[in-house]
């Protein structure tokens, strides 16, 4: 008799009537065959597997995470709100202990959406996991959260949102940025001065197979997670490391994804990319669901799977080992790295440029953050988009110390209204969002 060992929740929102445009990979058809496979397997009939209806994320839910420019409505569609709401529905069920863990199979994806969002980049407009994490922190008072991004592309959006946050450990495994969009996510990208080492980027060479991928999980991700000891583990479960994915060059498999899930034991998984919609997604998603539920997934194998053909070369194995050692070293040095990054009371300035490939927007940012040893530190971002708007966003982190809360208000009050079209204040301790 089939019965889930772990009570598992699923939100399935394939948005069968939503696409970026008619021939875009992020299209209506994307989860069709996954749904077929999941329905044919009778997954929703298995005792211990519960299907949830997505919630609808509110404007306020988005405002905890993003500065949407000029506003939330201009950047999102209803489908985005349902997708974020899907992740939130699973979070609610996990936090209320209705289920042990859950998987939000939602569209559209979100992990390329950064804190400032002028539009779409990498098929993403708002960040589902980040919105969910901020919701969990506000609603349930959870302190430490880890996000493991296993999409084949660097989770640069999530990376950006938690860049300065020492209480959120973000680890991204992805195909080397020199060979893949968005071209970032190198080992040296470790987070802001107050949060060095709480962002870890693990680039993997093209051709990495199940063996190499699971090596990193076993020898790097799991030990670091054990040390960080998060209250909640979130998996940004992109499925484009698959050997048939049309947009990437990796050799991961359905069995590999299921193993990964069984090892990582995420409390919440949220679907990200993955565009081999016929040959990979139906099997990968089924494997993830069965692994989460503690069920036997050994029969979930792609019809054309040939492990011999997918074996990785010795040089790839060596490269992966070197990267793993380097990341482990950074993690061990994180406290020194923070010390070296600046002195308390110092204001650190960072300039950066962001390109929105989906909506063809170019953005320049100037960010200022106060060095603080007690919290993540308040910061402001001066953001100018072409074409688009010139705005300023001020962020006070949820665990901000009293001094940094005051410094945040100082940024906001001193901001020159004549210089910016809009000035936003994200006051996370008070869960408030103000615009002037």
């Amino acid at each position, binding site marked *: 008799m089939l019965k889930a060992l772990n009570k598992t929740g699923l939100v399935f929102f394939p948005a069968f009537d939503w696409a970026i445009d008619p*021939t*875009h990979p992020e299209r209506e058809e994307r989860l069709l065959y996954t749904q077929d496979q999941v329905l044919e*397997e009778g997954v929703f*009939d298995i005792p211990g597997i519960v299907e949830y209806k997505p919630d609808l994320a509110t404007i306020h839910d988005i405002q905890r995470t993003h500065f949407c420019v000029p506003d939330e409505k201009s950047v999102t569609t209803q489908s985005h709100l349902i997708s974020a709401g899907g992740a939130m529905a699973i979070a609610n069920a996990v936090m209320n202990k209705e289920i042990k863990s859950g998987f939000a199979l939602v569209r559209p994806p979100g992990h390329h959406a950064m804190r400032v969002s002028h539009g779409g980049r990498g098929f993403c407009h708002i960040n589902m996991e980040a919105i969910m994490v901020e919701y969990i922190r506000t609603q349930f008072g959870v302190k430490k959260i880890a996000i493991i991004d296993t999409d084949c592309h660097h989770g640069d959006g999530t990376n950006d949102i938690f860049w300065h946050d020492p209480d959120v450990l973000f680890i991204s495994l992805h195909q080397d940025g020199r060979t893949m969009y968005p071209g970032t996510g190198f080992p040296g990208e470790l987070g802001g001065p107050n949060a060095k080492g709480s962002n870890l980027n693990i680039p993997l060479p093209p051709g990495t197979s199940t063996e190499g991928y699971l090596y990193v999980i076993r020898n790097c991700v799991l030990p670091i997670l054990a040390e960080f000891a998060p209250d909640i583990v979130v998996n940004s479960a992109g499925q484009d490391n698959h050997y048939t994915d049309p947009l990437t060059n990796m050799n991961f498999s359905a069995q590999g994804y299921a193993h990964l899930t069984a090892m990582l034991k995420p409390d919440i998984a949220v679907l990200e990319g993955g565009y081999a919609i*016929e040959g990979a997604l139906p099997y990968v998603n089924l494997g993830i669901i069965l692994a989460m539920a503690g069920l036997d997934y050994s029969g979930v194998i792609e019809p054309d799977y040939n492990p011999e053909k997918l074996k990785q070369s010795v040089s790839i194995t060596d490269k992966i080992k070197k990267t793993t050692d380097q990341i482990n070293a950074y993690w061990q040095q994180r406290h020194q790295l923070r010390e070296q990054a600046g002195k308390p009371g110092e204001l650190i300035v960072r300039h950066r440029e962001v390109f929105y490939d989906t909506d063809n927007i170019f953005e320049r940012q100037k960010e200022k953050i106060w060095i603080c040893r007690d919290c993540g530190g308040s910061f402001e971002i001066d953001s100018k988009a072409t074409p688009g708007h010139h705005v300023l966003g001020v962020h006070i982190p949820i665990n901000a110390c009293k001094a940094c809360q005051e410094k945040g208000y100082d940024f906001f009050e001193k901001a020159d209204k004549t210089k910016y079209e809009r000035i936003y204040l994200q006051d996370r301790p008070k869960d408030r969002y103000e615009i002037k």
Partner: protein
Amino acid sequence: MIIGLDVGGTHTDAVLLSTKGIEKIVKVPTDPTNLFNSVLAGFTQLLDTTDPGEIQRVVISTTLTTNALVQQEMGPIGMIVSAGPGIDPKLFSTGDHYYTVAGSINHRGREKAPVNEMEIEDIAQRLKKAGVAYVGVVSKFSVRNPSHEILIKRILNKHFKKVFLGHHVSGNLNFPRRIATTHLNAAVFDLHKAFFEAVKNSLAEKGLTLPIQILKADGGTMSLESSMDFPAQTILSGPAASIMGAIPYAPADQDVIVLDIGGTTTDIAFLVNKAPLLEPLGIQRGQYKSLIRSLRTDSKGIGGDSALRVIDGKLTIGPDRKGPAMAFGGPGPTPTDALVVLGLMDEGDSQKARAGIHEIAGQLNLSDMDAADHIFKKCCTIILKKTFEMIDELNSQPVYTVHDFLEGYKLSPQKILLLGGPAKFFADKIEEMYQIDTMAVPNASVANAIGAALARTTCEVSLIADTEQGIVTAHEEDFAEPISKTYSEDDLIETAYTLLKEKALNSGADSENMEEVEVVEFQKFNIVRNFSPRGKIYRTKIQLKPGLIKGFETILHQI
């Protein structure tokens, strides 16, 4: 004139209806060890004053299949199952003689691994040696491509009496349910065939030679002939019969709750604009899950004969039944005794009823009257609480498009229709407690037989058109045709209507009761590969809705 007959657990109810109204009602006790005698007794009494030549329609509903399933009285059935990637098919075993074999079809109906014909031959020999006469064959995704099932059947045909194929039971995806349903069809076939051939012959002896209709779990009928391929569809037709019997009294354009309050349980169902809500996939009762089209009903273990107890100073009702009410010679107090004490019910021994309620009243520190009222109110509360939970559940069902998420139908009933023995006593109380218009259905005790008599033929077809692969299919109907790249939504709907009409006529529908067709599902997808469109996938499901045949409903309304 038309006849409806429903064999229930305790009574067999039969009615004779004419365009003037109810001509005759017959109630005979059901003999669970010989349902055939119960059916025959019903017909004999019904027809003793009527000329069989005047009968235009006969619909029968029985618990034959349900009993067989509950009592596991089924012969040995061979099952041959092919799966491919996914959950281990051995987990869906139906018992002995269950074989998993090579062969795999994927979600788009493409063959990924072939059938091994030698393997099938070998299993056929083993099944024959084991004395198996009926075999079910099911492959994963056979509703997308049934060629493996058909090939296996060809090999088996010469060895067995009848071979049942998975893709014929439903157009819906769900491999484990397809296995269970195919198995059930094969398992009850012998019993069903013998029973209804006997009924048919006996009725013919009485001069009733017209085609017999059989009630299904979805509240529709099918002809005796078509029931031979799908005998499992007759399971749980009893609750469906009752719900259909409530339809004449349901207002159009409104959502209605139907409560069938019996002795041990209360069945709960919903009508939307006079059409009952259906299960999305099929009947499920506890562990048992199937693809048998069915009305969406749930039951709560509470009824007129539920056992009353006081535990830690609190009253509990049911879920068990120890026997009839004390007023009718039962062993302990029941809600029916409370009705007698309250003076609502005239039948029964009021002294015995009072003695039973007095016992409960003592433990609750209440007067007899207050205790009886408390019991009565609590019954209503328990039933309505369960009903509201069901409504919440229905309204929070997952949906898969932005449109349905934002504009999906929300059930909000404004009326309650009550069926069953104690129905008439409950109507006023429920209305008073919940401020919802509540009405006991006239002739509630034979509403099931009336429902059976008036139920029209129902059926459903599922189609998929795939312009990339150039084919439109409805494998459940053994239909597949080549199509061009320009095949449109309208073409698909037209094909669907043609197939539905054909299926309805084959199932015994008469042409004047085939108008209530509804598109249950329609989906459209562009197939995109490498940024360029390759074709379209259209999927639709249309049905002949459950409902009542024309010409009798208004008469009933005047009763």
